[in-house]
C-alpha cells in the first residue's frame, strides 16, 4: 500500500515537472459541479484553472475543443460529473 502511494506521488511529481505545476479545482468549482450532477451526469467537464470556467462535452475531445475556442492557449483539468474519475482501468495503469 505504501509502495502504491509513493508510486502515485512519483507520477504527480513527474507530471508537474513535465507539464508545469498541476493545479486542481477549488472546492468552489467542485461544489458547482456537484450541483450540476443530476442534469449533466456522465458529461466531461474541462475546467480552465485561471478563470475557473467550465466547458462540458460528452468526452475529453469535445470538452477540450470547446475550451480552446475561448482559451486557445490554455490547458484544463478534466472531471467526469457524478464520477470519481474521468476513466477507469481495471487491472491498473502502469506509470510510464
Amino acid at each position, binding site marked *: 500500500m505504501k509502495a502504491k502511494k509513493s508510486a502515485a506521488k512519483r507520477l504527480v511529481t513527474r507530471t508537474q515537472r513535465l507539464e508545469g505545476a498541476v493545479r486542481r479545482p477549488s472546492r468552489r468549482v467542485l461544489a458547482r459541479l456537484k450541483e450540476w450532477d443530476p442534469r449533466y451526469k456522465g458529461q466531461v467537464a474541462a475546467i480552465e484553472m485561471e478563470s475557473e470556467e467550465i466547458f462540458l462535452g460528452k468526452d475529453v475531445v469535445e470538452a477540450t475543443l470547446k475550451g480552446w475556442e475561448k482559451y486557445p492557449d490554455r490547458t484544463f483539468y478534466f472531471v467526469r460529473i457524478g464520477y470519481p474519475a474521468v*476513466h477507469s482501468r481495471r*487491472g491498473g495503469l502502469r506509470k510510464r
Partner: protein
Amino acid sequence: MKIQLVGRIVDAEPRFPSRIVGRRLLLDDRGRDQLILDSGFTGSVAIPEEWANRLELRYAGIQTFELANGQIVEFPTYLGAVQLGQAAGLFEIVVTAEALLGMEFFERLKARIVIDWRTKKVSCTGNLRPKFPSPLMGEG
C-alpha cells in the same frame, strides 16, 4: 467513412497493428507496433512515452483515472490525430507504459468487434466521422 481493422490474438490478447507515419499514429496491417484491445479500459488511446515523442500531440491537461483498487491517479492528456485507413479522427491520448485501445475508441467508431479464437484473429468494423475540425488535423 467505413473503417476495417484486422489484428491478431497474441498471448491471449487481441492486438491491432499500428505504426507512426508523418508524426501521426496509423492503424493498418503494415504496422509493426501493436495496440492491445482492452475492454477494462474506458478511455480512448494509451501509448508509451517513446511513441508520444514521435507524434504530433497537443497537451490538453490533466485527467483522472480510477484503478481497480479504487486508487485515483492523474495522467497528462493530449489530443492527437489517429489515422484509420483513409479516415482520420482526433482522439484523446494518454501517455502510460502501455499501448492500449479502450472502449471509448471503439464507441467513437460505433464498432463491431469479432474475436475469433479459431483463426486467432480480431476484426473491427465501424464508421469514423471526423466531426471535430482541428488544427492538429490540418482542417482548422
